[in-house]
């Protein structure tokens, strides 16, 4: 059996585990049985480990990090979302966040599975050590924004369903609010790094550091949205609902920058 077949098999198992995790988290929310939540965490964790193995197989096969076409990036992005979720879970013990974040992860993985997945060697423009930092930070940044959007959704939904909140299933509302802010700060720092390393790289690959390519422009738009969020939050005391909506809108911009730009507005930056 070759490595690519191994990767494909592991990928499928991870995909199934992510779906199982999402379902368990939903069951947890609906039934308030702690066991269901535990099961969700186990499924997410084992899915993550198997997913990591799948990525490892691909890295061995191609001899480089899986960062160079839309399939590989969607795959890494999924990995980043689950990594950020698990980090938050084990640090703050917010099981219910999984119900909002894991579906995002398996949707993203489903998107990845639709894309052509053959390993191709790097084209000359991508042969640079900046690739690792540039895309690595993008994975972390997008993962963080996804988890923040998940927390904001909890905030928006549980604000309405007082019952669920009383049963103490969903995390404390204030905690959700604060935590999504802190995670956005981290994602924003990473996004800034993505743009800065992109500019440095663009200067050495394409001669100009900024050329208003659709991907560049949309990453700037995303950056502006989160800048506005951080300012409104910090200087004007925006919290709660308006902040949560803002975080969801920011994440929509992230998704558009990632998928919309590549499919609708291709430029030199769409490595498909």
């Amino acid at each position: 059996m070759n490595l690519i077949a191994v990767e494909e098999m592991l990928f499928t198992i991870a995909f199934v585990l992510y779906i199982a995790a999402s379902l368990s988290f939903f069951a947890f929310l609906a039934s308030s049985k702690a066991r269901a939540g535990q099961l969700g965490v186990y499924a997410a964790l084992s899915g993550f480990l198997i997913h990591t193995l799948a990525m490892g197989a691909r890295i061995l096969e191609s001899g480089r990090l899986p960062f160079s076409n839309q399939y590989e990036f969607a795959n890494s992005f999924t990995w980043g979302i689950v990594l950020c979720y698990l980090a938050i879970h084990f640090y703050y013990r917010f099981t219910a966040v999984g119900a909002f974040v894991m579906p995002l992860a398996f949707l993203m993985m489903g998107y990845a599975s639709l894309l052509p997945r053959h390993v191709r060697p790097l084209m000359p423009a991508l042969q640079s050590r900046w690739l690792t930092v540039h895309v690595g930070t993008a994975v972390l940044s997008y993962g963080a924004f996804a988890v923040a959007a998940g927390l904001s959704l909890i905030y928006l939904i549980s604000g309405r369903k007082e019952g669920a909140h009383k049963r103490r299933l969903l995390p404390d509302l204030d905690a959700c609010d604060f935590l999504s802010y802190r995670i956005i700060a981290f994602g924003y720092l990473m996004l800034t790094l993505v743009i800065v390393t992109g500019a440095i790289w663009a200067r050495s690959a394409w001669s100009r550091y900024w050329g208003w390519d659709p991907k560049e422009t949309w990453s700037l738009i995303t950056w502006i949205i989160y800048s506005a969020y951080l300012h409104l939050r910090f200087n004007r005391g925006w919290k709660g609902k308006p902040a949560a909506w803002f975080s969801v809108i920011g994440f929509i911009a992230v998704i558009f920058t990632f998928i919309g730009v590549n499919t609708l507005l291709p430029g030199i930056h769409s490595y498909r």
Partner: protein
Amino acid sequence: MTFNRIKRWLFSLRFGIFLFIIMAIYVTFGTLLPQDLPPGHYLDSYRLGSLIIALGFHQTYSSWIFRVIMVMFLINLAGCTLKMIPSQQRRYRQDYFPSPKPDAENLWRDDITSDELLDLLRRKKYHISEILHEPGTYHATRNRWGVFASTITHAGIITIILGSFIGNYFAQEGFFNLMPGETATFHQEGFSVQLQDFYMSFREDGSTEQYYSDLLILENDAPVGSETIWVNRPLRHRGMMLYQSSFGWASRLQIKEIETNEVVFNQFLRNDETTFFQPAHLTVHLFGYFPEFQLGHQGMPVTLSQEERNPHYAVVLYHFGEFVDSFIMNPSQRFTYQGYEIGFAESVLYTGIIYRKDFGYYAVLAGCLLLMAGLLMAFYFYPKYILVRQGELYAISRQNAWGFSMWLKRILQQLKEKEGERS
């Protein structure tokens, strides 16, 4: 009075956010509409074509409206930043200490004494001072310089924008092709580069791995150095950057007079280039050179790779503008026309090089570093204040009130657990 009102509004966060929104919407149009086409195109293809032109969306990023937005943004940001400096300086002073918010949580635990606490904070690198007129009250602080985070972040953004303005107005850039042996000269910088060789490396599947140009650098016609450039590895000389950007094939067209067996025409043609041969009134159009030729879709010639495995030329002939014939031929084939023998002697690769000189880049780079440093300060090295008094313990921060209290609770918990293990 009104002047002050205008100033207040111009330097306000509200106006800044407004500009953020305008900017984001404005550039969004730039990504949705094709850019830099002639105005007629927009007038013909869009119902609101004249509006597109009036608002500058046909060249969004260089339109005067966009420049005005950017300049307003600069003014707003600079004003906002300067406005805040005095209060930051005040907060930076040794004796500044904020009081806890009315709804702040008191983290005091009876199982930990003040001394244990201060000891712990000292180990966590907090600066601790006892308040003179309130014995038993301690102020623990860390990262007081973090108050300048926003100023540094904003200074970074201002530097980036100014650097990009420098680039817009003073950068020189352009493009040239060189065949081996040819030279390009930069008069202003006082040097030239001669292409010694251009070559590619291939992978097993025939795809191109990399493009290389061997360049000889000359000053006053004397060589001063040589360098090989490839994609992602430009050459830098006297502030000018040279980038490997593209390549192409040039093919030598030779025309022989059959009677005398004499070469009467000898010239390089690039793909899709045309030349005119006066004696026979013949126009030769080199449709293309195909190093690894194959007939593709609908009989169109294509090349599978850039390796010369099966070279062919596709040529079209015209006589006084009338189509005469077209050929697909290999390098050893010749065709004859009115007593002339026509063929291609060889093909060589030429390189395409972009040059660019932009000192604004260094300002942009410096701005990026400031921006990153400022954000790190704002999010992680923000000022932290802890108030300790018998029966009272407050973690105070503007940036991260919840997380900072969480952290303090956590380390107190850890302290107790460790003690528990020891005893």
